[in-house]
């Protein structure tokens, strides 16, 4: 049992991040904190993919003349890394849009606290 927990410590860490992010998004009242929660949430998923790519006793997926090409198992899986590059870019774009929205909200309502905002929206 302990073995199971310790053997998968990366995933437990990722799960904690995910739940933290969700908590932030749902429970915090400040819109920026919600956004930060969302970012943490997205990051945890990125970490998940990256963690899944790793292998014991393998090296980074950059061509190493001492290993050569035929022993592909000595390199860690590059595909999730490339996927996550895309996902990081998507995340950055999302943060950009979200921040633009927050600026717009602040300009119009001069607050970023949700309860106050809801009041001012009426």
């Amino acid at each position, binding site marked *: 049992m302990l073995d199971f927990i310790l053997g998968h410590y990366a995933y437990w860490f990722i799960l904690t991040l995910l739940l933290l992010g*969700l908590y932030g*998004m749902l429970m915090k009242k400040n*819109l920026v904190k*919600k*956004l930060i929660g*969302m970012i943490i*949430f*997205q990051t945890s*998923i990125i970490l*998940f*993919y990256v963690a*899944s790519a790793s292998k014991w006793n393998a090296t980074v997926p950059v061509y190493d003349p001492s290993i050569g090409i035929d022993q592909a198992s000595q390199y860690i899986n590059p595909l*999730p890394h490339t*996927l996550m590059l*895309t*996902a990081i870019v*998507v995340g950055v*774009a*999302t943060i950009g*849009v*979200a921040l633009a*929205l*927050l600026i*717009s*909200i602040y300009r*119009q309502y001069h607050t970023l606290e949700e309860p106050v*905002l809801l009041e001012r*929206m009426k």
Partner: protein
Amino acid sequence: MIEQNLPVLIPVSFLFAALLIPLIGNWKQSSTYPLVFGAVGFAFFLSIYGLSRVLTDGAIHYQLGGWIPPIGIEYVLDPLSSFMVVVITGVALLVLVHSKSVVELELPEKLIPYYSIAMLFLAGLCGMVVTGDLFNLYVFLEISSLSGYALIAVGEKRSSVAAFRYLLLGTIGASFYLLGLGFLYIVTGSLNLADLAKILPHIYLEPTVIVGFVLMVGGVSIKMALFPLHGWLPDAYTLAPSASSALIAPIGTKVAAYVMIRIVLFVFEPNYFRDTLHVADIITWVSAAGILFGSIMAMAQDELKRMLAYSSVAQIGYIGLGLGMANPLALTGAVLHVLNHAFMKACLFLVAGNLRTKVGHSTISEFDDSLRKTMPWTMAAFSIAALSMIGIPPTAGFFSKWYLILGGIENSEWIFVAVILSSSLLNAVYFFRVLEKVYLRSKDTVDVHHAHNDHVKENQAVKRNEVGFSMLAPTIIFAIGIVLLGIFNAVLVNEVINLIIPAGI
């Protein structure tokens, strides 16, 4: 030559337009419209051509960069995706033609960025539909989502808040999808749709696969606004500018429904979600709840767009119900309803846009029967769309309900038949409320002018104040389309939809 590249040309033409519009538009503003209509028209023409080739010759595959799947990313036009692409581009074409006047009225200084983002939105939607790679689907999903948030946020004051809330929820949805995909990738090593379909049956019962499946379906449900994950929808549709809601409402959630159909029926086998996991039952129950919830909430609304937004929640429930019942008739109803509802909702939102343009508001309690005289064609289109939503034959809405009912009876799930039928009555309540306001004299004037004394001259006193041709034509075309889709639905079902339903059902 074009034929082989068709699958990729459709999203690419939108991408090109999205880039060209700011470039050329900032130099010469008047060139924006030709670019927009050119791009959408071209894409529509391509999708029709694609559909006709697919129906006769079979699916078209395109490999991005020449890399062979499952290593490379593949774009596929098969009956389902070509059908969806026709729906998306067709509806978008008419809505964008309509949007010209609306955008000029509501957002004149943001014209160029608006259309550029609209092109991105459509690129994202079309990309989601044609891609054969699940991660590529995520990328396009986020493209369309981000553009969607932007399209919504350009509206009135409160729309930024609605867009932000939508952003949070939408990102949760997309991220869950990504997480689920990650689980599947870990155990299969593939991201290609067709490839996964071959590998997964061997490992259906592994916990990883089950969790991956559930996460993917859950994430897509949020984007689809399946009850109870619909919370972002009412505010987003209501507070967005008229042109955006007309663009997003008919097709946005439908593409998410398409993704659900792909995952549930094509990546996994139908009996997986129906018999092995019983997820189908959950989907049917939440869809039924959504139908009732949406219809009841719609009855309580005073603002036309908000009423239509809740109505959309109910209509997505129909599609979910058809999917969950998982037999050929119910699926026929669900797929047909994607098309029917796209037309109906587009027509209704265009009417709302017309009203806002001419009367300045779309608050139902402030409608009166002057609308009947000032905007007769718009209200006629509204009446046809309303009759279709209620389910009066021979309009389109009746037939999607007919197939869904037959599907429910086939499964002996009478409760769902009752839900579908009673929702028709609920729809009648909230639509007739508007029709009464528009077509009948209000109570105050009736007491004052006794029925006997009104003369024909009254009709001539109020002048016609209908919207312009570019706004009216799409509205009328949608309305006529609703009737034609109803009358000729057998052709559609026999020629197209029967090819879409997978054999395993």
